[in-house]
């Protein structure tokens, strides 16, 4: 099966995951027939239709967009740094956006709270990205991969602690802490979907355009420049795309961890190394992963809701350990 067909095969999987996310684990007895009849003939007196439309649909749509955004952001980061451990959550970009989110939402600094949320998150993610970029030594030509990762992890931890501090200072009984730090899709509305969708679409378009330059960059910085690729241009546009996607995702769902680390590796195993194909594959796989995780997270403590972030983070941290170890073994031999 050619890679193109494999990407095509992911579409029905996405639809099934979407259907499951719509119907499974609900207090109301939702069935797949309800979804079908909703599409065919919407009946505003039907309670199941109302539940699906006002609660489930925005949640599933948000999971789709956020998953796609985070996965593609991870892919672009891995492509730009040529580092298999790069991803928004390992390098602290998500945590930076989440810190900005927390500062804005808790009104700790009054004038930040007035600005639009997406702009605040965008600034937070950019700042975190720039810090990792310079502290990790990415601006020098020979990049040491372990160094970037360690710098990123430390910054991630710093932002996480600052977010915790901000939330505790703002909210004395501190119950919000878990919600702010793990990322959840529990309270998503159509307004959130409208916020995230256009920016994710824009980011994905940018990522598709980056496919060919990233293929060149895979050969190495120097060879890319010899072949006429603009290294500086790719880095700027790539960073912009990453920050945009992460900011959009965090605005809606908080810092959902490690989606951007796992999905690109799965996609590479499935599709190969061509970035032009990897971008759509990652978007689809990321959406599937987040839809399935969100459904499972709902089932963890059913009928209580659990944040989806705890599932992806647990899964992803194991994956991170596996990757770190494999990288080291490869470097050792």
């Amino acid at each position: 099966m050619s890679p193109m067909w494999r990407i095509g095969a992911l579409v029905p999987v996405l639809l099934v995951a979407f259907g499951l996310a719509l119907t499974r684990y609900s207090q109301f007895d939702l069935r797949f027939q309800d979804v079908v009849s909703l599409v065919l003939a919407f009946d505003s007196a039907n309670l199941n239709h109302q539940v699906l439309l006002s609660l489930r649909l925005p949640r599933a749509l948000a999971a789709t967009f956020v998953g796609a955004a985070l996965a593609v952001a991870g892919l672009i980061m891995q492509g730009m740094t040529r580092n298999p451990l790069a991803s928004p959550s390992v390098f602290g970009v998500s945590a930076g956006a989440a810190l900005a989110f927390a500062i804005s939402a808790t009104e700790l600094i009054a004038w930040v709270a007035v600005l639009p949320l997406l702009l605040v998150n965008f600034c937070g993610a950019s700042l975190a990205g720039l810090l990792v970029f310079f502290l990790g030594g990415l601006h020098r030509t020979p990049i040491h991969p372990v160094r970037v990762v360690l710098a990123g992890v430390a910054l991630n931890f710093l932002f996480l602690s600052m977010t915790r501090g901000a939330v505790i200072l703002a909210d004395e009984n501190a119950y919000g802490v878990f919600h702010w730090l793990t990322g959840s899709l529990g309270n998503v509305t159509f307004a959130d979907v409208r916020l995230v969708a256009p920016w994710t679409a824009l980011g994905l378009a940018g990522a598709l355009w980056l496919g060919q330059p990233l293929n060149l960059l895979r050969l190495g910085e120097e060879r890319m420049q010899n072949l006429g690729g603009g290294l500086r241009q790719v880095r700027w546009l790539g960073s912009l795309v990453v920050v945009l996607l992460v900011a959009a995702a965090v605005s809606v769902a908080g810092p959902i961890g490690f989606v951007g680390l796992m999905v690109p590796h799965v996609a590479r195993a499935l599709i190969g190394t061509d970035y032009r194909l990897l971008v759509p594959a990652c978007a689809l796989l990321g959406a599937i992963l987040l839809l399935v995780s969100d459904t499972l997270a709902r089932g963890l403590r059913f009928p209580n809701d659990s944040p989806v972030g705890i599932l992806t983070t647990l899964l992803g941290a194991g994956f991170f350990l596996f990757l770190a170890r494999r990288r080291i073994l490869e470097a050792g031999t």
Partner: protein
Amino acid sequence: MTRWLPMSVTLMVVLVLFSAWHLGFGAVKISPPDLWRTLMHQQPEYEFILYGYRMPRLVIAALVGAALALSGLLVQGVVRNPLASPDILGVTGGASLAVVGFSIAWTGAPVAWVPIVALAGGFASLGCLLWLARPVLNQPASLALVGVALSALFAAAIDFLLTLYPLEINSSLIWLTGSVWGRNWSHLPLIVPWLIILIPVAALLAYRLDLLNLGDATATSLGTRVSGLRLLALLTAVALASASVSVCGAISFVGLVAPHMARFLVGHRHLPLIPVCLLLGAILMVSADLFARVLMPPIELPAGIVTAFIGAPYFVFLITRYKHW
């Protein structure tokens, strides 16, 4: 180096000053003269606040800081790795995961079990780390990378457990970030015996750790049993870190920063390093808890957050300066 004695005395003075501030500050402010009179039992007015709340918290913070600092010193000495410390290698994370799992599985378990569970968790995570990082034990950055990944996994597991089985919020915060909130005299027996036993052990190992610094071959030819020494020192370090976790959760970066500061002050020999390191750890922890309360009273932050504010940037600074990639 004969600098260690004046240095220790200076640090002791600093510690006493911070402690006085720590004891005096709070919802009820106690002025220094009042504090002195209360300590001399001439003024009963503040005795309850002082001996019931602030003194135990101060003592616990100082002891925990000292234990973590010594643990970091031993770990850095053994693996000869400036980036190593019990929290970066995942030992404190593993110990807190064990305690969280234990307190969820057995609600109302006697407190006396907690240090043993923490110790088991600490040893298990050390075992995991050494097994996973077998091929790269002599490459500092790679070892730190595996440790960091292991810590991330433990932290994720703690998040997961605490979300599924919510504890009371303040005890949850202790296991998420480390905090000396609400610690009292009853927590003292969890850590004091360990310090009494393990500080002399560390002092006995100090001279051999100096030899280890010369390289494995030299140390062996000078009559050191290198692998046995390594094991003993690591076990001591893990026991110290786990004891501190059982009292107040995983406090980050004290074990990394304090040994570096100590080396900067008194050089590289372990025997003088030990007292300086203990004092520095205590100062760091007491001042962190102090700033956690001073920042925006009456709200207080967990001390672990303040140590992260200091420690994480320092770790990044270490990475940017580290040359042996």
